[in-house]
């Protein structure tokens, strides 16, 4: 059996990744970043929110979009889980419901990249729940 991955190898891995990242220079200016929040309360988790979150993390990186993906508690739209809140720089947050990977792909291509509104937006006056 091969050697099990450990923290030491993680350090090597890190150097490797770092040399590649510098080329791309990710900004550390949150105001220019796309913010993606995936609702992860019981209803969200039960309907697949984890897979959607992983999809956003991987795809946004692959497509070179400077974004920060985080999780949030219940946003109050259990009937439409998984739900995802997208905030484009300088814009109001928009919440999408019933997000599967196909919808997530559309959100990235149409809304995040081009700013075009697409189906699936939850039409309510939305206040962020964090506070």
């Amino acid at each position, binding site marked *: 059996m091969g050697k099990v*991955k450990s923290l030491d190898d993680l350090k090597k891995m890190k150097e490797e990744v770092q040399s590649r990242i510098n080329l791309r220079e990710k900004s550390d200016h949150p105001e220019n970043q796309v913010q993606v929040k995936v609702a992860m309360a019981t209803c969200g988790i039960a309907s697949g929110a984890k897979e959607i979150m992983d999809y956003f993390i991987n795809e946004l990186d692959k497509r070179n979009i400077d974004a920060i993906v985080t999780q949030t508690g219940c946003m109050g739209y259990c009937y439409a889980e998984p739900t995802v809140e997208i905030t484009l720089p300088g814009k109001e947050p928009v919440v999408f419901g019933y997000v599967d990977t196909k919808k997530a792909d559309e959100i990235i291509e149409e809304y995040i990249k081009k700013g075009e509104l697409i189906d699936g937006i939850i039409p309510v006056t939305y206040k962020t729940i964090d506070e």
Partner: protein
Amino acid sequence: MKDLSMHILDIAQNSITADASLIQIAIHEDMEKNSYEIVIADDGKGMTKEICDRVTDPYFTTRTTRKVGIGLSLLRQNAEQTGGHIDIHSEPGKGTKVRSIFTYDHIDRPALGDISGTIITLVAANPEIDLIYTHTAQNGKYCFDTREIKAALEDMKISNPKIRQYLHEMIEENLTEINPDQPVDGSKYI
């Protein structure tokens, strides 16, 4: 909830909502005692005794976004179905500990499911929170501690996809070490 790791993700979300800065997840598989124990502890804002006594009532919640809360009662229901139980200790300002016991070989015990993916999801989505995951099985104990990981990574973000992938594999490989009877594929890990 399809499997135990989804419960874990869910209960840990309660800790995040309670502003925890450290979450400890411990799984203890004990075939001799025929028990499968999951403990999730946090240093979040905790709750009063009154609230704590009621949280596993179906539908109890203090949230204002929706009238019902089902996370803890689902966990309780699932544990009890296997002849197990849950108990919750909490203190305002100190934190909360949720302990659930399942009967190991009970037919209704859900599989663990994708625990590596669950841990990584929690870690990547909440970089400011520290997480310690310990897993004890027949061949030993594995401990995953984000404080060590962050120290090794220095200024590299834990949410970097390559790093996430690496950590995911690292957890999976270590789990196979402590429980060689289980399939390597994390999704089937029971």
